[in-house]
């Protein structure tokens, strides 16, 4: 099954919110981000991966270093109160689509 990462799930975690706050000021390398936390490098990398998967962070290759920066467009989407409403309909329609595909294959 396809893993669906959504933005709301991503920002539900306090460490991930802290990473977002950090990157709101400037783009940073993964090691610079990890230095700001007590958690292990691996834990922080996992958080960065999740944030990148849902497009809240973007990679910026500068020479040999990778910097992570915030994607303000995506973050703006989260701030909009309309998103839960959209998601409610998206979930319903996904269900409709699944049910009807099942219905079609049974015929």
């Amino acid at each position: 099954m396809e893993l669906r990462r959504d933005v709301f799930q991503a920002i539900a975690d306090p460490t991930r919110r802290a990473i977002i706050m950090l990157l709101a000021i400037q783009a940073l390398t993964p090691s610079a981000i990890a230095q700001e936390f007590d958690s292990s490098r691996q834990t922080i990398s996992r958080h960065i991966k999740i944030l990148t998967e849902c497009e809240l962070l973007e990679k910026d290759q500068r020479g040999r270093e990778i910097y992570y920066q915030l994607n303000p467009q995506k973050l703006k989407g989260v701030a909009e109160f309309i998103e839960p409403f959209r998601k409610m309909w998206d979930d319903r329609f996904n269900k409709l689509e699944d049910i009807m595909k099942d219905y079609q294959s049974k015929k």
Partner: protein
Amino acid sequence: MERKTKVHAENGKQDILITREFDLPVDLLFKAYIEPEIVEQWMGTKVLKLENRSHGGWEFETTDPAGNKHGFSGVIHEFVHGSKITRTFEMLNSDFGPQLEFLEFEKCSGTRSRLSMHVIYRSVTIRDQVLKLPFEYGVNMAHDRLQEILSKLI
């Protein structure tokens, strides 16, 4: 991640437009709106009445996790098989009043279809309140869960 369902709501207006493309032929998409057993599955509601014709009526009833029943109903103003449903929608026991909905079903290809749902509310304030409902529900749910955890600790 692609956003399949789009919601267009302009500031200061009293309507919204919901659009969605489906990986389904248009007749199957339409069927999902008119067969009571299918509506019940994807809308998560009980269908008490669904008269698929112009000047018909409809009534749904949902039961929330706490066991409370909520009624929804309206009239079908225009029904064109396979392409169009114009209806009113009202959440009973709420202050929102009825809203007017224009549902259009379009064929994109033999296997794909598109739904557009244009919803008009009585006022800008009511529209904004309805849009915020799932958001507030989500916040309340999180709050309830927190209370539940806290009450177990005490």
